[in-house]
């Protein structure tokens, strides 16, 4: 599998699982099943890169992002951050590590406390970690606002006074406050208008260059992911089905799901669209509480074989740096 240490990986995810229990009964709650939101995923995130994580809604990409930075504790598996296993850490040790990994949330309307000023929102992490206080704190917050392209003069305003794009900038400033190395960007642009999306993506790219950040960029917009990512992982029903550098993935997809997903994305060019062949997938994604046996894509796969419903395909390296979990690849 992916090499273990000394390969420039900042984050190493190994066999990560996150199950949410389904319970029945009010007084005596019985455990009757699990939603397998993330089901045994392994990958590395290299220092300074952007890893795109794509998939349809409900595929577990957000849960994966949150479990990696321990906002959810995993059901099984390990997450090594700079060689240290985050899943074994508790209390102060973990809090200390949190300074180095931050998250930008999807909805800039729900992720900012409406009762706090921008200054308190961006300054809160600095206070909690006792990095700065008083005049120094204020100066640092002003510096951060400037860094994300907001006027430092806005420091005493409340979130409702800002537009969606500006709020997302506040979210970015908050994530940057503790000078982290690693940021999970959880669909940071999907709630924004098209012309504003490009502003935020350009900002994230500039900050990465300036500060040497590492991103896990979670999104369902495959065009934007191609633009921003160095490597891309495709998730389906809790599992990673394909992982590769982004040009390779988009030009030479191996997994039937990746192929179908890519062909479903419309290209804003009517001349190209006229000639494109589309693979239309039948049906809907099965429930993660009751995934089909074998390969979990076998219910919708256009090239399904007998073995697919019997055995789960292994996630293996087909070409250097190009991983795929499909029986079709392994039989060749």
């Amino acid at each position, binding site marked *: 599998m992916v090499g273990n240490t000394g390969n420039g990986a900042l984050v190493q995810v190994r066999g990560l699982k996150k199950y949410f229990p389904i319970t029945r009964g009010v007084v005596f709650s019985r455990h009757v099943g699990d939603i397998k939101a993330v089901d045994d995923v392994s990958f590395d995130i290299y220092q300074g890169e952007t890893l795109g994580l794509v998939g*349809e*809604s409900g595929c577990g990409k957000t849960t994966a992002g949150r479990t990696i930075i321990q906002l959810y504790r995993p059901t099984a598996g390990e997450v090594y951050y700079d060689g240290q296993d985050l899943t074994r850490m508790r209390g102060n040790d973990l809090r200390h590590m949190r300074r180095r990994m931050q998250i930008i949330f999807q909805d800039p309307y729900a992720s900012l406390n409406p009762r706090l000023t921008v200054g308190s929102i961006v300054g809160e992490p600095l206070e909690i970690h006792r990095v700065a206080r008083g005049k120094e704190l204020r100066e640092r917050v002003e510096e951060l606002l400037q860094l994300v392209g907001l006027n430092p003069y806005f420091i005493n305003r409340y979130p409702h006074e800002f*537009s969606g*794009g*500006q709020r997302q900038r506040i979210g970015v400033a908050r994530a940057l406050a503790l000078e982290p190395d690693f940021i999970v960007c959880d669909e940071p642009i999907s709630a924004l*208008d*098209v*012309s*504003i*999306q*490009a*502003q935020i*993506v*350009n900002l994230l*790219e500039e900050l990465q260059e300036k500060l040497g950040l590492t991103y896990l960029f979670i999104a*369902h917009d*495959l*065009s*934007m992911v*191609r*633009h921003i990512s160095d490597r891309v992982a495709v998730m389906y029903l809790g599992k990673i089905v394909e992982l590769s550098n*982004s*040009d390779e993935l*988009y030009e030479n997809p191996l997994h039937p799901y990746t192929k*179908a*997903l*890519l*062909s*479903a*994305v*419309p*290209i*804003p*060019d*009517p*001349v*190209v*669209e006229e000639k494109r062949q*589309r693979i*239309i*997938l039948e049906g*809907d*994604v099965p429930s993660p509480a009751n995934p089909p046996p074998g390969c979990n894509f076998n219910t919708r796969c256009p090239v399904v074989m007998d073995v697919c419903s019997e055995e789960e395909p292994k996630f293996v390296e087909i070409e250097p740096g190009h991983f795929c979990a499909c029986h079709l690849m392994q039989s060749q």
Partner: protein
Amino acid sequence: MANLLEIRDLKTQFFTQDGVVHAVNGISYDLQEGECLGIVGESGCGKSVSVLSVMRLIPDPPGKIVGGEINFRGRNLRQLSEEEMRHVRGAEMAMVFQEPMTSLNPVLTIGFQIVEALKLHQGMNTKEARERAAELLAMVGIPQAADRLDDYPHQFSGGMRQRVMIAMALSCSPSLLIADEPTTALDVTIQAQIVDLVKRLRDKLGMAVIWITHDLGVIARLAERVIVMYAGYIVEEAEVKELYGYPRHPYTIGLLGSLPRLDVRIDAKLTSVRGQPPDLVYLPPGCPFAPRCDYSAERCESEMPSLEAVGVGHKVACWEKDKTEGVRPYGR
């Protein structure tokens, strides 16, 4: 071919506590029988309000159509009584909304909701209407259609619900189908299913379609002609290939430049449109895009340009349109 719909100088405003919201500010366009027209724009540009005005579904108060004509097959819909309008809606023009869960009644079965329209508009009896409803569900690709008539909306997935909505809209064979962002809430693989379904049904039934979206990709696949709206004005109108190949309004150029593409990698930064859309209560006296425009001149600040022809079927509302000739959006 004859014009099905002629909109002339349509103005719709909302009278709220904060002031008058100028949602639609004098737009005019034609739609031919059987044509597919795309209306693109960002949230709050008036695209939904403009078609809700056509259907006369603007909530009054606070909204009101304050001027203009809506000629549908030679009749001005603004002069019809509410009773007459009810016969037009559903039978001659029908609408599919963005969020299928909120537009279906959760406590009534799917069959009941389709049958209701058929009995009302077509005068069918229950048995005939149920047979027709099953046919319609089969036509939009719902498996075991006859058995699913007695299911409730929550028993369908998002994509299936949107199919039910389309079946319902098509129940009385309207000559105009208005689709208001019908795929925005859906995943890309499901979106591809719905877009292809509408395309197929249009070819089969010969109805005209107005498809509203903020997604320039979907429009490239579907529409024959495109209208670009900004702050309640039509800023550009052209045949689909003309618009994507030779956009002339700085806003259209900016929008196309801010879209990454799946099929080519653009290494440079996306060209974002700076700033944000204006507040529709306090519209600037001149061109509403002027504060964000790279081509803005003195006249743009004071006077709104009218929509003028720059080619066959290509119209643009811009004072500086001579300067944008030959300008290519980034990456094209």
